[in-house]
């Protein structure tokens, strides 16, 4: 039998190649054009003016990425790691190969995460640099961009692991995922005290460059408002723990659970 590392790599290659061609990827890649179009529109309206307004609209874009785009991507790709194989009945092709079952989950998770990250990276870089076109000489701009990209990357890893786990245990994982991603996550992050720490987005926001209300962002900074941010090191650690734990659980469930096709 192939060692797990090699098996993960092969599954990764298989699904990266397949994932690029699916209709789902085309739809979500098109969705990634929304902030790009928005950035172009704003630039036209601003008539080349830069500064605070550009920064404000960049934050609006981040809300789109952080609280919508990566969540919806992770929801649809994460739950499909196992569920699409069961619903499509293609699971038989995978589990009758000489590879450990967890390698299937890990390889597919990695392939889909990379695919999502590429979609987000293209969309973010286009919209971000269009929005901040007048500040190319400012080195801080690139640092901000990299920190945004890094946060979104961590978000993809954590959310996808969680949704992958949901997809291994539930038949209607998408519904539960929708409630979690757009219900729980949107509400719980604004709860004071330790409750907000039960949301993924709390740790993601804790890593973003902080723009205090009343500062350059004005009232719009409320969109990225955070109550009591966790320190960056703890936030990264927590996101890594969330990704690791749910991925391990997904592997364990997939290895032990018997999947039956619906007749």
């Amino acid at each position, binding site marked *: *039998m192939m060692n797990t590392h090699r098996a993960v790599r092969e599954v990764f290659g298989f699904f990266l190649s397949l994932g690029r061609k*699916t209709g789902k990827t085309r739809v979500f890649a098109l969705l990634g054009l929304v902030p790009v179009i928005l950035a172009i529109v704003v630039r036209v309206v601003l008539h080349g003016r830069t500064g605070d307004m550009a920064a404000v609209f960049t934050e609006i874009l981040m809300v789109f990425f952080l609280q919508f785009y990566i969540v919806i991507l992770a929801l649809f790709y994460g739950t499909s790691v196992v569920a699409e194989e069961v619903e499509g009945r293609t699971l038989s092709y995978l589990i009758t190969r*000489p590879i450990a*079952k967890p390698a299937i989950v890990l390889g597919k998770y990695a392939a889909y995460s990379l695919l999502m990250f590429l979609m987000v990276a293209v969309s973010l870089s286009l919209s971000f640099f269009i929005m901040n076109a007048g500040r190319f000489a400012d080195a801080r701009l690139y640092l901000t961009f990299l920190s945004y990209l890094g946060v979104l990357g961590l978000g993809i890893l954590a959310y996808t692991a969680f949704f992958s786990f949901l997809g291994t245990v539930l038949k209607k994982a998408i519904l539960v995922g929708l409630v979690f991603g757009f219900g729980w996550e949107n509400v719980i992050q604004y709860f004071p005290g330790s409750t907000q720490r039960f949301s993924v987005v709390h740790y993601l926001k804790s890593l973003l460059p902080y723009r205090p209300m009343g500062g350059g962002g004005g009232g719009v900074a409320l969109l990225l408002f955070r109550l009591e941010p966790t320190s960056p090191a703890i936030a990264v650690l927590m996101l890594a723990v969330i990704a690791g734990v749910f991925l391990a659980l997904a592997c364990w469930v997939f*290895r032990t659970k018997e*999947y039956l096709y619906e007749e």
Partner: protein
Amino acid sequence: MTAVIHASNLSKWYGNVLGLNDVTLDIASGITGLLGPNGAGKSTFMKLITGQMKPNIGQVTVRGRKSWNNPVLFRDIGFCPENDVFYEEMTGWEFVTGLLRFYGYSASEIKERAAKALDIVELTKDKDRLIRGYSRGMRQRVKFAQAIAHDPEIVILDEPLSGLDPLGKRKLIKLIKEFKSQGRTVLVSSHVLPEIEALTSEIVLVHQGKILAQGDIRFIRELIESHPHMISVRSSDPRALAARFVGDRSIQKMSFGADGRTLVVETHKRDDFFGCLTGAVLEGRIEVEEISSPDDNLQAVFEYLVGK
């Protein structure tokens, strides 16, 4: 007989539906036909052998090793599922090479094996087309190709001939027989008796999750011969046709259909009846619109065998 596949007291149920019921069975090398009507438990048995399902009771072993959660086994097993499902966005070539990656072969070996498998099933010319655009027969063949591409010792084929045209069936039957001559083990399922008959004489009869019988196909042939066949003949003048059959000893019973144009005949000697029918049509100039056999399928035969 050395059993390659061994099932002992194997039972599997889905909720309160029984899929397989206390099956104890040995399958040796060569071709074994798993014969039974739809829903008999053939696919369940194959999924248990290939480790896709976990038995509720009993166990199934392949070469002495349990198949559930034992991926090591799959280097020696090739499985062709019944369902017509694929990664539709892939080409035939990508599908076969993609699945071969999971065996640890080098890139050149993957290409070599995929090319050989696709050549065997005569899909070389169409290998770069999307599977989505394949005909049903081509889809069956590419499914077969992925099952044999790694050169397995044991090949499990779930309804492999379904959807193939007669020529395609003949070719696949020839291929499967070649596997036997190479000393491999082939387990093939079908609900169509002549298909299994063309492949092997060693059969396992499955019905309602139970093994009814195992052995030479000739005995079921004999049982089928004793099973009264119903043949329905739609013609312009069924009564005139019936009048010509009255004296024929091959016919046991006749009745008329509700539409007034159908004659339903029950006979033990189907061949004799068809000879008589041909004569009647030729001599009496009676126009026959349709001949069908409502119970000419395994379901009817099995119901007869189990005394329903």
